[in-house]
């Protein structure tokens, strides 16, 4: 640790007890604070967030827009770093990394699923799924097998050569899910995965989530929709940057 500047001031409670990850704990956040400066004002998007996620959990983060859930997702997804607080992913601290290292962490640990799919429109379904594997430097032959496996798994084995605009919304989201699981990431991180879909296709995507969860994959789903959140086995609520454990029946 060369970054003295980032060290917690003494007197804060959590610095005293160094975190040792439990066997099943793949994500651990302690006292995460995220401040944004807007002009002279400082806006606190996350306020002392503490969260632990175990392997195989299906967690929903439920909150209205402006509650800080996107900021939380960015930090979980290593797209952003907290102002203060500790974040451990797969037992390793995410702190003081440069963008190149963060990119590698994202590639290895996180599978992103976005509300509006974010597929490259000029590339086929196959090529879209292949992308993170290329960034993982996987050899070509192995890559082809993996891409084909993943597309089969989401039921699009026959659409590999299709471009996104030749696929329905539900099919596009399934391509995006195949892309997210291609690198076998530690966490599937979904941001309003059904937000752009009608109810029926949304339900199909949720079914796919359940299937993936049953395979043992960890899913963190960020949503404002209590009905969608109810698919998860555990729900946390976020409001004004504060996180609270919710109950299933509240949803």
């Amino acid at each position, binding site marked *: 640790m060369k970054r003295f500047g980032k060290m917690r001031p003494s007197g804060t409670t959590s610095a005293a007890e160094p975190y040792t990850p439990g066997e099943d704990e793949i994500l651990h956040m302690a006292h995460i604070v995220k401040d944004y400066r807007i002009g002279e004002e400082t806006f606190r998007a996350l306020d002392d967030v503490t969260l632990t996620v175990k392997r195989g959990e299906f967690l929903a983060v439920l909150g209205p827009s402006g509650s800080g859930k996107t900021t939380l997702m960015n930090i979980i997804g290593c797209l952003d770093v907290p102002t203060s607080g500790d974040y451990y992913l797969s037992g390793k601290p995410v702190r003081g990394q440069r963008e190149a290292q963060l990119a590698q962490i994202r590639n290895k640990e996180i599978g992103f699923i976005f509300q509006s799919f974010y597929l490259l429109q000029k590339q086929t379904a196959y090529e879209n799924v292949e992308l*993170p594997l290329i960034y993982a430097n996987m050899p070509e032959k192995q890559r082809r097998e993996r891409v084909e496996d993943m597309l089969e798994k989401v039921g699009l084995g026959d659409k590999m050569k299709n471009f996104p605009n030749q696929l329905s919304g539900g099919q596009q989201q399934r391509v995006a899910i195949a892309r997210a699981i291609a690198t076998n990431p530690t966490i599937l991180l979904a941001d309003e995965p059904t937000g752009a879909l009608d109810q029926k296709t949304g339900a199909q995507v949720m079914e796919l989530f359940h299937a993936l969860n049953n395979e043992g994959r960890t899913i963190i789903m960020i949503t404002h929709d209590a009905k969608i959140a109810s698919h998860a086995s555990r729900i946390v609520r976020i409001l004004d940057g504060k996180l609270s454990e919710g109950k299933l029946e509240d949803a």
Partner: protein
Amino acid sequence: MRKLIYTVRQSLRISVQNIITNKMRSFLTMLGIIIGVAAVIGLITLVQNATSSILGQFSELGAGTLSVSAPGTAMKQGLTDADLKTLMAVPGVKGVSPQVSGSTAAVYDFKVYDNVSVTGRNELYFAYNDVVESGRALNASDMSGNINVCLIDQDFRTNILKGTEAVGKTVRLNGAEYLIVGVQKQDNSLFSAYSDRSNLDGSVIIPYKNALTMSWNKNVTSLDIYVEDGASNADVEENLRETLDKIYNNTEGAYQIFNLDSLMDTMNTVSSMLSTMLGGIAGIALVVGGIGIMNMMLVSVSERTKEIGLRKALGAEPARIQTQFLLEAVILSIIGGLIGVLFGCLIALIGARLMDTPFAVSPSAIALGLGFSAAVGIIFGWAPARRASRLNPIDALRAE
């Protein structure tokens, strides 16, 4: 390595896709590069071809030749026979050929032709210049006997002999009967092409002493010196100066020596200067083209901000994004460069046809053009690529 090959292949495909989807924009972007490279290749090739053709004419005319003009002094005009013998003995001199020029009237078939150019030469002129088309050259006995013989040129045959057989006919020059013994070749050299001979009825070559008599001169004032093979023109020129200084008692301006070799050196210098200058102008076009590329790439980066954000979220390191965009710029430039090479060759070909010089594109010009366009791609693609690589993934993903 695999990473790089993939990035190259991926970038190649993406940039080709981009070029196809934005045909007009891509074409306009590449136009600067196309014009620049076409100009580099076209102009350099034109200058090189023109120079080599001119130099070829020079060397045909004057390889190993020095021209001496010796008006002499008030006391001693021109050069006497004895002086010519002295010059012949100068080290490195293979031959001395006087040139006596004048004009006279010719009478043939009861018609008078007023404008006939007469040049006096000796037998050595014919030994070192291949000018006889048919008949024979003037020889040593023609010289020693002051025989009235002449060689006519093509104009003489057309205008005066009306195209009939020349050798064996006689023509009256300045009142004396001359026997036509030979016909000269058509003079196709660059110099004859630019000298105005339209008012001449024709020209003849006669023994130089006859020409001296005809022009009321006693001495020779103009001559060609043939330099021995292997001797340097400059050295021989130096030796000649020594001898001529003695002949004229070091009088200023008594003689002048024209060295075609130094003229050729000058030509070469001028042509390489011209190449550099034209290359510089074309280089400006390339820079302008580069700015076009930079503009297009900046637009491309901001249009594809979301794509960049996604790639970053999926694990693309900044360096990889930078390589991708840099390669796209280079590929765009090289495609422009290739089109430019084609246009440049076309310009060179048309130029060669118009100037009637042989068409040859030097590979170095093509390499220069392509190398330059790749360099332009790298230089002007750098900033946009850097910008792309530095985008914050969150902002990039959120961009619309």
